[in-house]
């Protein structure tokens, strides 16, 4: 079935080389995008939880904007709109970036900042899930606000939310395919190109599907491994991947059974 992948393309490569190069772009987007998302998401998530009104409002605004625009529209904003509204010298410099990079960087920023908004909500939920006594104990020990967050609140919150971050990891590698709309030849785009060149649609899409499945498995296992390694003893969160994935607002599933009992 997959024999066609080892045939020569018009440009002298094998079709499987196209697929692998697509996989490379997909992985690069997902990996570097993830670290942008994680860094920004943690900062914004902390911002959501602090007393400072201005910081909280800005963080809220960030989340509202980046979560409520479809990722495809955001992709277009970064790729088409940003260079136009910047001062023209800077805009032209962006437009003149050589082909794959001119699409890669907007896509990277787009995915990173979009996922950051979702991670921020998870981080906030994690911080809110901590018992009040933790912060009070930190106060009693004379820790400043900064030190409380740095050594008490954030480390614990991050350990709590590993299961729900799993769905964000899965989300970002799936969303890398949106980059094909601005012309980046990632995995899905390459699969389509192979299907158009060979008419072996089943093979081309099948190969891409298998690769995505493998990536999902790896991402899931890695996150479960991390969860096991860092989980706070005695906390039983929704471990189920599906339960974690359900959560737009991460509290919902934890609360579901409680509400269910209350409704009776």
């Amino acid at each position, binding site marked *: 079935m997959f024999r066609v992948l080892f045939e020569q393309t018009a440009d002298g490569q094998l079709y499987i080389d196209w697929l692998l190069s697509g996989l490379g772009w997909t992985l690069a987007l997902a990996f570097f995008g993830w670290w942008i998302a994680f860094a920004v998401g943690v900062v914004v998530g902390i911002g959501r939880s602090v007393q400072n009104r201005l910081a909280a409002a800005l963080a809220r605004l960030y989340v509202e904007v980046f979560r409520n625009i479809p990722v495809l529209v955001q992709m*277009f904003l970064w790729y088409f709109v940003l260079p*136009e509204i910047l001062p023209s010298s800077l805009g032209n410099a962006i437009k003149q970036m050589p082909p794959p990079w001119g699409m890669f960087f907007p896509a990277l920023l787009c995915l990173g900042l979009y996922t950051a908004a979702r991670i921020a909500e998870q981080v906030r939920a994690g911080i809110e899930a901590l018992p009040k006594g933790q912060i009070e104990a930190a106060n009693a020990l004379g820790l400043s606000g900064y030190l409380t967050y740095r050594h008490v609140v954030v480390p614990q919150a991050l350990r709590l939310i590993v299961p729900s971050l799993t769905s964000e990891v899965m989300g970002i590698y799936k969303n890398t395919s949106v980059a094909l709309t601005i012309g980046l030849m990632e995995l899905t785009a390459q699969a389509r190109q192979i299907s158009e060149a060979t008419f072996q649609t089943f093979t081309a899409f099948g190969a891409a599907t298998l690769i*995505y*499945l493998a990536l999902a498995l790896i991402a899931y296992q890695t996150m479960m491994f991390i969860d096991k390694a860092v989980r706070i003893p005695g906390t039983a969160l929704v471990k189920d991947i599906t339960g974690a994935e*359900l959560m737009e607002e991460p509290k*919902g599933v934890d609360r579901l059974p409680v509400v269910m009992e209350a*409704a009776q």
Partner: protein
Amino acid sequence: MNSLDFTIVLQAWPYLWSGLLFSLALTAAAFLIGMILGTGFALVQHFEIRVLNQIVRGYITLIRSIPLILVLFWFFFLVPIVLGHLSGNGRPIPIGATYTAFITFGLFEAAYYSEIIRVGLRAVNRGQFEACQALALSSFDTYRHVILPQVFRVASPIILSQTIILFQDTSLVYVLSLTDLLGAASKLAQLNGRLVEMYLTVAVIYIVISSAASQCVATLRRRYALTGAHR
């Protein structure tokens, strides 16, 4: 930096509006199909019906592991072939991108809704089932009148949040060249060269609709929390 001219958006409004209506229609249809199928999928897993259970689990895992764009491509390619086989003469029946989009989003969302409903089913108190048995309700009546209504009620905030995500995801029909809200804007932008105004307008429309809907869901959630607290 060119000066922005948003009067172009006013001229384009009827076309954008029809695009928005298509996005909403697609969302509604996918919601209906997805909920009906998703409930079915959840029940199959809940009852652990042999063979069917494994097929459904496999389907859900697969759909949730690959990007929606790839799913769209798959269905765009597969649906005519499958329909051809179903109709008997074996020749592919082209049904056009619009119907493909409706079918794809319905089947795709079914996987997500079914996971929500499955978790909801698991959360129902055992006593509910025992009470139904005590009342001599048939198994059908138990689910129809007692269990499922509670699941829907309690899971409704999550189901609605998922539907907001679905509404945003419908923009991906762009890859099938359909004229949803984003498709309409992008076609006009290519005609009149006003990319900036068009895409900014679309972004604002999406923000307004999605955050209004999120606010409604949040209100709903609070109301449920209150009822719970008073009981």
